[in-house]
């Protein structure tokens, strides 16, 4: 590197440093780095199909996927499918997260309740959730209820386990503070145990939400007339790989956005954390 280059580089650094928005700039830079590889691969495939190296019939090039997405958007189908899927995930997640938090919390606070119920839950946990589907269909019919139930079951276990494990590892020293102030069991749960586990709870909810998106696909694959999972099945049956890939991309975006929303919502609750790194 010549002295001239060095001077130029320093000047460049000074200029970028003086822009005054290092956080936003850093975020954009992170996004650019993260997108670079998939964008390059997509571009390569596009070029390959255009150049006639492949006909792109089974693996459609990005332009065709984009066109499919635009088509779906224009007819309003895309919004309908997204809304249907999001509604199922939201309902299932709400039921599963609430049940997991409450039962995990009670199990963590009461040894008696834990001895009574935990073996049963652990047993159910090792049942693949899809195995419940026939039973749910018998019980709840074939419309929304069994799908929401399936998602709720998927969300329940990571949240239940996360809450239970976190409560059991709450620092004895903080529990003793509660004892000195004569907290009842319910107060101990509300004022010491639950706040202490907030960080682990946020993580448990995130993994629950991730499973929620996994199970919504399973539920919709098994029979739905709308939803992104339906787009997948439809694309397979009618031989439209572009529609399948489009649905997959929408799934990825939705999952990422939902996760980011969850992180953003939980951030103010975790402002007190004394961690080496800013939370997630």
């Amino acid at each position, binding site marked *: 590197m010549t002295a001239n280059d060095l001077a130029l580089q320093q000047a460049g650094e000074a200029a970028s440093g003086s822009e005054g928005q290092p956080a936003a700039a850093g975020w954009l830079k992170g996004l650019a780095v993260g997108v670079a590889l998939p964008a390059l691969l997509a571009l390569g495939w596009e070029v390959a199909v255009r150049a006639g190296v492949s006909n792109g019939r089974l693996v459609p090039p990005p332009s065709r996927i984009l066109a499919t997405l635009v088509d779906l958007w224009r007819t309003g189908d895309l919004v309908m499918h997204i809304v249907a899927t999001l509604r199922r995930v939201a309902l299932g997640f709400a039921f599963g997260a609430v049940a997991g938090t409450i039962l995990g919390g009670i199990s963590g606070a009461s040894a008696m309740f834990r001895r009574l119920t935990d073996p049963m839950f652990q047993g159910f946990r090792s049942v693949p959730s899809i195995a419940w589907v026939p039973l749910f269909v018998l019980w709840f019919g074939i419309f929304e209820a069994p799908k929401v139930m399936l998602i709720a079951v998927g969300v329940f276990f990571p949240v239940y386990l996360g809450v239970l494990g976190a409560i059991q590892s709450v620092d004895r*020293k903080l529990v*003793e503070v509660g004892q000195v*102030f*004569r907290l009842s069991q319910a107060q101990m749960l509300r004022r010491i145990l639950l*706040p*202490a586990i907030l960080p682990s709870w946020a993580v448990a909810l995130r993994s629950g939400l991730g499973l929620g998106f996994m199970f919504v696909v399973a539920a919709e694959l098994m029979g739905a007339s709308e939803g992104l999972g339906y787009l997948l099945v439809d694309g397979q049956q009618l031989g439209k790989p572009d529609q399948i890939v489009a649905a997959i991309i929408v799934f990825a975006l939705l999952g990422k956005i939902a996760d980011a929303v969850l992180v953003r919502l939980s951030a103010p609750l975790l402002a*007190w*954390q004394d961690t080496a790194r800013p939370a997630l």
Partner: protein
Amino acid sequence: MLTIEALTKTYAGGTTALSNVSLSMQAGEIVALVGGSGCGKTTLLRLVAGLDRPSGGSVAVDGNVVTEPNAAVGLIFQEPRLLPWLSVADNIAFGLKHLPRKEQRARVDFALMRVGLAGYNDRWPRQLSGGQAQRVAISRALAPEPKVLLLDEPFSALDAFTRASLHDHLLALWAAQRPTMLMVTHDVEEAVTLADRVVVMQPRPGRIFAQIAIDFPRPRDPLSDAFIAAKRRILEALDGSLSESRPKPKPDESPAAAWW
């Protein structure tokens, strides 16, 4: 006011941590417990706080026997143990939830002013230094105005300067409410600085070896003759407690038990 009678604690493993300890304290008195490690100082404190149950004997505050944590007894731990998810003000108000909000705020502000942390209400515990955190912990324990305050080596993790200033803060708070204070310490100077009476304990099993009254007025100059004399008496008693606990087997034990 605080009456400890024939208190004995034997742990499940068969270790007798505390054997037949009796101690009676007047209202507003400050007593320091000193002694070698394993002499049951902390066990005694936990029993008085109601965190553990005695194997024999009893603890009573104003005639009421203590069997579980009790509004009349406050406890300050060796570490601040602030709840990290509560602001400084909410930590101090932790034991005040039965009071109206206005009263809570008034007590918090008063306590913070007393310990020299006025305006720290909205800080998080992670933003405090060790000495500041322990001051908040003292305020939290004193805010519900307990009759008895127990302190378990509350300043042992702090440097000498911070410790000295905390002694002043503690005495200021004590002067405002005059709780009966029972503190465990391993620092003889701290005991002489703060206490009206120093109880020297003896290990294996934990019991009281000697009680030394310190009757000259506070604040106490650590270079004064009275201070140095008191310190010497405590150190001699400590020496005695350690040497005596070793070679002399108790009369009810067979000589074979003297395995040392």
